């Protein structure tokens, strides 16, 4: 058993969440944005596991949640790519900015 304090995991998760968020907000390319989202979800996973340990594995809720998050993230990624490909067919670009015809 290591004795790394809980908050350090939380810090790490927070920082990763922030980095992911930055990617979501600032990257031009849709796939990069997707990567940002994946990072955010991983930050969530770190949190869940850290708290699961903190609660002394009193329930399996944390790891179970992580399983679902990973699964759903994968599904989301697949769907996202499908949509990105579809949009690419129309616009010949995968830049998020370029799809802004709906506005106002």
């Amino acid at each position: 058993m290591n004795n790394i304090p809980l908050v350090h995991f939380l810090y790490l998760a927070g920082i990763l969440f922030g980095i992911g968020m930055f990617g979501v907000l600032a990257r031009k390319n849709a796939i990069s944005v997707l990567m940002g989202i994946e990072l955010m979800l991983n930050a969530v996973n770190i949190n869940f596991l850290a708290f699961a340990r903190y609660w002394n594995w009193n329930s399996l809720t944390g790891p179970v949640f992580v399983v679902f998050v990973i699964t759903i993230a994968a599904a989301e990624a697949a769907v996202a790519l499908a949509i990105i490909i579809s949009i690419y067919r129309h616009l010949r670009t995968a830049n998020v900015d370029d799809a802004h015809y709906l506005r106002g």
Partner: protein
Amino acid sequence: MIQVQAFLPELWLVSAAFLVIIADLFQKSTSSKTVVKGIAVLGVVGALLSLCCISGCGSCPISACCSAVAGNVPTAFGGFLKTDALSVFFKVIILLATLFTLLISFRFFKANPTPYLTEFIAVLLFSAAGASALTSAQEIITLYVALETLTISSYLLASFMKKDKASNEAGMKYLLLGAFSSALLLFGFSYLYGFTGTTVISEIGKVLATQVASPLLTLSVIMIVAGLAFKISLAPFHMWTPDVYEGAPTPVTAFLSVASKTAGFAAFVRLFWVGLSVPALQPTWIALFAVLAVISIILGNLEALPQRNIKRLMAYSSIAQAGYISTGFLAGGQLGLTAVLFYMFVYLFANMGVFLAITIVAAKTGSEQIEDYAGMWKRSPLIGIMLLVGLLSLAGVPPFAGFSGKWYLFGAAISKGYTWIALVGMIFSVVSLYYYLQVARQALISAPKDDSPIELSWVENAVLVICVLFIVTLGFWPTPIMQIAQTAATSLFN
């Protein structure tokens, strides 16, 4: 002990979806796919009827609520899934919305043929199953999975017209915003889990009841609010709504505006009024909702004013409606939740009726611009009346049901001392009247540019008439639905 009744509607929907896919294998791709449509409709109707089995009384699904509260609450999966009266009520709304969506999509895809009608229906049914399951979920993971089933399917539905640039764009925007909203939601959940060590909503409430507020807890609540507010398009998390509503195929817009929103409110109700309704947090999130509701009402109504595209208009309208409903939600208690439920029910008919009308008109004229509704009284009086009745119900004008709904919503808010919210709400209802009436004006007053009548099938006729009658009758005589909604609301606190 697992009671199948607890997830019977989902079972119906999922089975229907599978059957649809299977049936499609035996149909020619060029056929009108009557069998597929039939199965889908039957599936949803079956799901609706299955709600009767929940109480075993065999009467209409809505009255099932009443018996469900009597104690025989079907429970499954260790209590993670519990179909109480509240969820039955929500399910009824969601299933009816799905039924309407199916109907709208039949007309829609007749005008915009696609080879993937089967897949559309299947995904729609999966999505509906997600929404339906969400209303019964008593635990966060279950809730999250159901929510994502709804949401991810919705992304796909929104971008289903893949030859249409707008649909693609709508899908992408919905997906990206939806995905990181759900990341935000999960991040909030993770801290909540950290504070309580459990994901069972009722236990979260029990644990938190003894804790003092800490910034992290508050942050997690805010993140949860943000993540879920996305679903009900509450400002400032509403930004996706206009773009997606405008770009998505009309049936999907209809589905999002009712089913998805209902599911969002269902999640909110469970999570906040059961899980987070603790002294340390409640004032914070109620204040937060008050602000968000007011912002939504103001933003939604103001931004709707300059709109020319009716779907976009409906998007802003739905933002404002979310604000109204939130006033009832934040008032809480039996009264507030009753108001929310009743209003959602009314909203269902008004919005769905209007979207059906929009689809029919768009199928004929190919336009979603408000100007093109000119002279609808001559081309199809029923559509004209539907638009008038539906939109004015949304505006809350008597004698339409929206009025009774608002009466209860604002009543609930005022009963908890949020008179100012009610005042803002009412004043902006008047603003909303301006844009709703613009549509009604075109439809009922202006002279038609094109005289050709718009023909409706008998089903559409019937559905429109039912919508109108429902809205008018509920305006004058809201009593039965109100009582059921009240029973449903009561069940939350049992």
